[in-house]
């Protein structure tokens, strides 16, 4: 085993991780550990834009943006956090421009802005042009720009290092409470274990979309950061709120940006009807994602779907000028051509909702400090991006707010972590901190026969798609819970064929599956307990929002692994405990959510 020591260790090199690294590397010795090369991160798949009330093309105001964010999140957004995000959005966009991001421009040469779902003028009057964009590859440009600036600053990366454990130790200096001591990482190239001692750790590992089968998420988005925190006894907040993006390529889940509708695209059912007029008369196709996704699923369920199995609806761009499509939506039209053989100039594109974004995650406060219960933080532990739940997205994230989230809270996490590392004392690593990770890996690798990883994963993903997707019921989720609990049992017998050390991605997938199963259970339990419908969480047996009982954040806990756990792959606990945390309401009282 190799040991390393840094002031700040950042886990994950997507948008949030690299934004944090840009802040912290100038202030403290920083290492970025990432299981992928930084430019492979899924930030690069984001398309539409990043909203900020710049008022470059029409009157706008960050307070309106805050309102839209709170309303879009079905009022379970922590409003102090949303205010910070929307206020700092303006600086975040300008910062990116100064770093070199090639935004599309207005005729005056300023950053151009366009409409996006759920973003409105003056508290819902009409759609507003708020999204700053670079064609339909804004996320790609953000990821590249951040990486470029990391190269410029000489940020130290450990590429293809997979962090498998978070080391917490009780620390005298922090009043005997658990504090960060470091992380344990597995080097993919050699199979070697590395221990990184650090004063501060920033989790920026992204989402967990792979708990679902149809998803816009990358194969590598397996909730690793959420999983390692959860196993160490830290809570997960609001994981039942999962966003299903309306326009995934039918059958594939590949994302077609909301920008397609922002630029004038229209959703139609098999009768050619623009059905969103019925569901959201004011802003129609630009309603928030949860509403559009549910409307689409409803059209299909009521027999107005298209295709041989009537299982999708159509995104119609044919009335737009091909030149306009090429200028504003080049990538996504290419996806339609490549993967479905559909020519968007002349044919509508088959689309269906796809699992897209985890609103929930590791709970943090507005300085990105991770909470270990409703009020107390873990000294030295930070989280930002999709892995975290601040919560600025509430029950449903507005389009473009994820790119905003990673930039605003990535930056805050980097600054806070570096500042903490400058003042804080080192926390002693416990003896053999790597033991749990070694056991975990060797148990799987050492098993001679058993079940294939892929079989379990398929069962998990198909179950989640069938039972816990856009429409949820007590019955469907009880069934899903049963399957997930069986999978926990079956996971004890999972086997890999590759027994080697170097680039053992077979082993990696087995470990990732463990996180997925663990998180799926939290999703289902949280959703079962939330007997209401709110944002991305829609219960057919409780179709109304219930502010009296459920205007609270879910906090899920499990029994933590011991400091020096010897349990190997029996990593799951029997019991997940659910608790609740109040929502921070500042100026917007919950109202009915109509568009």
């Amino acid at each position: 085993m190799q040991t390393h020591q840094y002031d700040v260790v950042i886990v994950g090199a997507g948008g949030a991780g690299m934004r944090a690294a840009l802040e912290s590397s100038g202030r403290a010795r920083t290492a970025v550990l990432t299981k992928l090369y930084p430019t492979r991160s899924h930030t690069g798949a984001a398309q539409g834009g990043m909203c900020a009330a710049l008022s470059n093309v029409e009157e706008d105001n960050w307070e309106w943006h805050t309102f839209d964010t709170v309303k879009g999140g079905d009022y379970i957004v922590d409003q102090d956090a949303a205010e910070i995000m929307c206020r700092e959005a303006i600086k975040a966009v300008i910062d990116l421009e100064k770093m070199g991001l090639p935004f599309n421009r207005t005729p005056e040469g300023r950053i151009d802005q366009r409409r996006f779902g759920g973003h409105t003028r003056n508290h819902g009057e009409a759609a507003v042009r708020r999204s700053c964009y670079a064609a339909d590859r804004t996320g790609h440009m953000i990821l590249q720009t951040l990486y470029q600036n990391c190269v410029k600053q000489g940020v130290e990366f450990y590429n293809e290092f997979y962090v498998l454990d978070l080391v917490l130790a009780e620390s005298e200096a922090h009043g005997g409470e658990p504090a960060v001591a470091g992380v344990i990482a597995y080097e993919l190239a050699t199979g070697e274990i590395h221990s990184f001692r650090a004063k501060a750790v920033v989790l920026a590992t992204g989402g967990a979309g792979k708990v679902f089968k149809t998803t816009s998420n990358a194969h590598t988005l397996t909730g690793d950061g959420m999983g390692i925190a959860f196993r160490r006894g830290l809570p997960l907040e609001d994981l039942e709120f999962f966003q299903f993006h309306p326009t995934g390529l039918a059958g594939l889940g590949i994302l077609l940006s909301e920008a397609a509708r922002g630029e004038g695209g229209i959703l139609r059912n098999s009768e050619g009807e623009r059905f969103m007029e019925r569901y959201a008369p004011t802003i129609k196709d630009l309603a928030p994602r949860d509403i559009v996704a549910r409307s689409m699923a409803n059209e299909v369920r009521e027999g107005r779907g298209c295709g041989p199995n009537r299982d999708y609806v159509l995104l119609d761009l044919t009335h737009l000028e091909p030149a306009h499509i090429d200028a504003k939506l080049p990538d996504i039209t290419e996806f339609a051509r490549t993967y479905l053989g559909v020519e968007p100039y002349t044919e509508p594109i088959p689309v269906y909702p796809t699992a897209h974004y985890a609103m929930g995650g590791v709970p943090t406060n507005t300085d990105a400090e991770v909470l270990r219960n409703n009020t107390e933080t873990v000294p030295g532990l930070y989280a930002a991006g999709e892995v975290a739940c601040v919560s600025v997205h509430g029950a449903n994230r507005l389009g473009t707010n994820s790119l905003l989230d990673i930039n605003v809270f990535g930056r805050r996490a980097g600054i806070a972590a570096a500042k903490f590392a400058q003042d804080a004392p080192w926390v002693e690593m416990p003896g053999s901190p790597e033991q749990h990770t070694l056991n975990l890996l060797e148990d799987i690798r050492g098993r001679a026969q058993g079940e294939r990883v892929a079989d379990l994963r398929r069962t998990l993903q198909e179950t989640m798609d069938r039972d816990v997707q856009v429409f949820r019921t007590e019955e469907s989720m009880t069934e899903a819970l049963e399957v997930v609990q069986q999978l926990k049992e079956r996971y004890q017998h999972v086997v890999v064929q590759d027994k080697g050390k170097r680039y053992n991605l077979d082993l990696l997938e087995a470990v990732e599956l463990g996180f997925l199963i663990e998180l799926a259970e939290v999703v289902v339990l949280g959703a079962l307990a939330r007997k209401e419908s709110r944002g991305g969480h829609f219960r057919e047996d409780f179709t109304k929002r219930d502010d009296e009982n459920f205007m609270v954040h879910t906090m899920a806990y499990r029994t933590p692994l011991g400091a020096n756990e010897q349990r190997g792959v029996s990593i799951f606990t029997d019991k997940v405990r659910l608790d609740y945390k109040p929502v921070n309401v500042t100026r917007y009282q919950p109202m009915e959510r109509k568009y």
Partner: protein
Amino acid sequence: MSTTTSADSNRGPVVTDLTTKSPYERRTHSRGNFELWSWLFMRASGVLLLVLVFGHLFVNLMTGDGIKGVDFAFVAGKWSSPFWQFWDLLMLWLAELHGVNGVRTIINDYTERDSTRLVLKTLLFLSALLVMVLGTLVIFTFDPCIDPNSTLQQCTGR
């Protein structure tokens, strides 16, 4: 268990045990403009050679008696004029340099070992030098009356 701490110099990720001299690590930085001029020269000489070569072919093959007219006397006649001496000299030098530079490029691109590269390039440059020196010498020291019994106009008129 090996231990590297923050003070350690090799704290960066050790991805592969590359040999001390990686074939990828850029060894030198040239700050001159040689490759630039060489690239420009290839284009310029190429264009010029098109004119020179086709001019040469046209005069030799299309005018007068065509190919049947090309003999010792014909060459002697041409080289008695400084214009054709200069034309042929330019053509020789440009063609040789253009070719040598092209082959140099190919050697650079396709040899794998530095020693092979050195040997091949040395041979190339020596051969080029030989051709150019000999060619130049021939053009300027060419004597049409080297045969004492020559019946050529230039010789009989003396």
